[in-house]
């Protein structure tokens, strides 16, 4: 077990050093290892960001991108560090005002993991911190599901099945939490974005079945808003769902875009491995005056989120999933440390090489397929590697018995441990 912890630390320290190495050319952010980066943009209404958008683009993340750039440019010096978290806040935005919140969940395409309720909690806490209020009341809350875009042709049968499944598996946990907030009055109206009629029905049915709040808002993009299908309009009227407009892109912040924004401020490797978890868009509208006074955008992202994806539902899942890989490390290190063979330098270097290969491999799989722990691995890994270990141990013992002379002749006593007791290698390699 110590090996796991060490391995973990070793990895992040190693990269921390790497970042340190490049810190001079880059910025303060790189000088400390961190696992969370939270970024609050300024009031984009006042910085000119929103005003000078190109409105011919009706679906756009231009506002978000330039707001993030702006914040990094102006507010990096004001970054705050706490533990392994970094918070960058544009100070022009703050002030207690109630308004509308839109939360964009960002997950890798194909991911079926449930949307994290923890992130929702974090999001609301962050917003409260940013606005300096406790127990914030949100007028409209719009939940924007990852990769959800309005389809005017409706869903076919398989799509209906898939959508129902994803509502059940990945949306409902978050919806339950939102529903609680809605019922306690902290959210005025609760809704979704880019849903068609069938999708609204599916969510409504699922919510009704569990006694949760039903959607009351559906945000559709401007380019569709004047040609919406009749059935959606009628259904919305029937169900008293407000149809509102928005101008956000479907993919509000793709990882590639995010890393290209971060690149000037972070070491290249760190910039590319940062993946945003969610984006919050907050705007307050002084109703009686028709003025929008505040519009902040917050992004929460995690450093090394490829290794520790932010979608961990709970500590238990995180522990389990990390443990799978951790166990692998343990196995390899056991190989290394409890080796009955006389150890030679080359034999120490080889497992380390395999550890590195293993890491690259999991990373690649994650990057390409969007998952990094395979369901079958739990039973197989434990039994298989356990068996292998015993087999390996046995083979080693056989080796010792039949090829002892050869083994001894491998190297000089100075380099190798002649007395193969279980304790002495640990003394030597305990701090690998």
């Amino acid at each position: 077990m110590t090996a796991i912890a060490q391995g973990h630390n070793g990895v992040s320290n190693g990269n921390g050093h790497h970042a340190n190495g490049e810190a001079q050319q880059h910025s303060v952010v790189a000088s400390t290892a961190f696992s969370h980066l939270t970024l609050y943009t300024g009031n984009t209404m006042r910085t000119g960001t929103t005003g000078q958008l190109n409105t011919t683009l009706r679906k756009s993340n231009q506002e978000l991108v330039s707001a993030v750039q702006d914040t990094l440019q102006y507010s990096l010096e004001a970054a705050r560090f706490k533990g392994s978290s970094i918070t960058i806040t544009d100070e022009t935005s703050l002030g207690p005002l109630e308004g509308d919140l839109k939360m964009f969940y960002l997950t890798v395409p194909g991911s079926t993991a449930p949307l994290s309720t923890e992130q929702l909690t974090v999001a609301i806490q962050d917003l409260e911190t940013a606005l300096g209020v406790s127990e914030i009341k949100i007028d409209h809350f719009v939940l924007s599901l990852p990769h959800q875009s309005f389809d005017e042709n409706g869903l076919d049968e398989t799509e209906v099945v898939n959508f129902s499944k994803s509502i059940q598996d990945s949306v409902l946990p978050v919806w339950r939490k939102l529903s609680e907030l809605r019922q306690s009055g902290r959210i005025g109206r609760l809704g979704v974005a880019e849903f068609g009629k069938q999708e609204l029905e599916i969510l409504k049915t699922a919510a009704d079945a569990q006694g949760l709040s039903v959607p009351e808002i559906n945000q559709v993009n401007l380019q569709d808003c004047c040609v919406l299908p009749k059935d959606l309009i009628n259904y919305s009227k029937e169900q008293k769902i407000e149809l509102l407009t928005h101008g956000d892109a479907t993919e509000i912040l793709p990882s590639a875009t995010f890393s290209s924004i971060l690149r000037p401020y972070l070491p290249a490797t760190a910039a590319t491995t940062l993946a945003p978890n969610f984006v919050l868009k907050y705007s307050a509208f002084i109703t009686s005056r028709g003025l929008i006074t505040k519009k902040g955008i917050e992004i929460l992202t995690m450093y090394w989120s490829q290794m520790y994806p932010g979608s961990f539902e709970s500590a238990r899942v995180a522990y389990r999933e990390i443990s799978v890989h951790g166990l692998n490390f343990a196995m390899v290190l056991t190989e290394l440390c409890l080796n009955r063979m006389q150890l030679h330098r080359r034999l120490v270097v080889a497992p380390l090489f395999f550890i590195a290969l293993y890491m690259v491999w999991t990373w690649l799989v994650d990057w390409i397929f969007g998952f990094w722990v395979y369901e079958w691995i739990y039973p197989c890994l434990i039994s298989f590697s356990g068996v292998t270990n015993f087999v390996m141990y046995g083979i080693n013992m056989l080796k010792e018995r039949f090829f002892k002379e050869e083994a001894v002749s491998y190297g000089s006593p100075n380099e190798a441990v002649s007395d193969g007791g279980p304790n002495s290698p640990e003394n030597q390699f305990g701090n690998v």
Partner: protein
Amino acid sequence: MGLLSLGTPMHWSEAKKHADHVREHGIIQFLNLWQVAKDSQKDCLLWGDEVEYMVIAYDEEKKNAKLSLRVFEMLSELSKEEEEANKHPEKNLEVKTAWRPEYGRYMLEGTPGTPYMGLPRDLLAVEQNMKLRRALAQRWMKPHEIPVTLTSFPRLGCEGEFLEPHHIPDGAACRSLFVPDQIINAHVRFPTLTANIRRRRGSKVAINTPIFHDKNTPKPFIDPTIPRRNLFPEDRNAIEDGAALPDHIYMDAMAFGMGCSCLQITFQAVNVDEARKIYDQMAPLGPIMLALTAAAPIYRGYLSDVDCRWNVIAQSVDDRTEEERGLKPLKDSKFRINKSRYDSIDSYISNDPSNKPEYNDIPLVYDKDVYKKLSDNGIDDLLARHIAHLFIRDPLVIFEELLNVDDNESTDHFENLQSTNWQTMRFKPPPSKTSPIGWRVEFRSMEIQLTDFENAAFAIFIVLVTRAVLSFNTNFYIPISKVDENMKVAQHRNAVLGEKFHFRKSIFPQSRPGTPASGTPSGSPKLSNASLPRATHHGTNLSAGLDRSDEYELMTINEIINGKPSTGYPGLLGLVNNYLNTLNIDIETRCEISKYLELIKKRANGTLMTAASWMRQFVQNHPDYKQDSVVSERINYDLVKMVEKINNGEVIVPELLGSFSV
């Protein structure tokens, strides 16, 4: 046109003696009001539009469209709703429309009965209310009468009959060769105003508008229809004294100007600072909107070479003496004054840091005594100058009975001068100390459009621009002399497509603001910490020196409205759209608003014609037109009929309205 008081009006020779009295007490009244209202805070956007109608009476036999002088009969019926509500405040009756007389006896001014609110869906009430007003006005008319929204009546002051009933032009008030006194509102204030302008000026007003030279228009054009008459001493003005210029359409009465209709928008700001900010920010848009709404190409039966009413009105109420106009050395008059009472504003008044002293680059003529009195009572420099500037004028109409009033209660004397300074923008204090109404700003340059759809579109656009201005904290400042240049250019024929206007290049705060702008709560204690590096970062831009000529450039209306991608300027429409995109607007509202904005976009980029261009085209394509610039009775009749049909939806004119339904 302000509130109408009853009483005995003074002749100019008498009124002149009381001018200082009115000014002195006007300032006292303003100061009393200021003490009470300076900290007034309203938390609500209220706004309203003013639409002016002309009442047409057809003579179907002779195929003539004339102006009906029956408006007072209609007004008494139209205002019953409001009177009833005022009589019984306990009933809380909802007043949908409010009606006022205007300068011309053929004009109706209609406003919404209660102001509109600030929510996006309130904007959808505008066109409905305008349609209701038109329908109500129609209800009290005879079958051959209709209300139209024409900016200038093409045949006003022509030979033949243009009024119903007909009158011979021989009135003593305006002494015009072309229009009778019966055309003026019967309320005693208006003939007095007309006569006192002439008396103060020392001559009749002289309006000369360049004629449009068509193929068969004589060159030089000497108007053969100017009559020779020997009734009043002023009758010599036109020809013998050379007031009528060659190649111009000559007009000689206030009715030619004040008889024009326009579209005015008034907004209530939350406080005096916000009102001053809106005043300044909207001022540079005055000429732009004038060019974009151009709708007045015909005067006294001739096609003119201008598209807008502005200069005609300016000349029609120009009461400056020859000394004031700089024709003679100053002797009896106090100031040399550059502009008519009706003209573009002369100074910016906001205390916002973005208002740099260099923008007020017109030497401001103002009354030093008034200024000192205001300064001594704690009015800041910019506002004191503004008021002292308005007070260089003389009060034109003084009622004997209202000469001595309680300055604590009344604002009559202040309003006397305030409401006879007709500028592109008007900064309006609350009407009285006890009024629930707050500080307001009026946007006055736009011309009235032919249909309610268009009028609603422009009204809504202007309101959305003010919201975007406050939300984004934009900066439209350019030197005010450049706004004046724009004002001249804006009236040129087809200025909307053919001319370029000075406009600010970068309308967003260069350096990000360290302090939130007025009207925005908040700010953060950590502010200084974060903004320090910023200030040094942008320090070079802050003190660019006094030459601000690199802050603005010449742009077309299309660029100003629809944006200039090469410089990143989003255009006024872009600004409005970005504002709307940020709101959670329901789709129905958004789609409706999009139609209005689409009209503005297409007018600006030339896809659709302005009313002025369309009327020109209509005249030039009319079989009766002889390419000699003359708009005959028959052409006028057909034009008015056409406008009526467009409003009823009987005729579709895609070149003017595209596929929008009115």
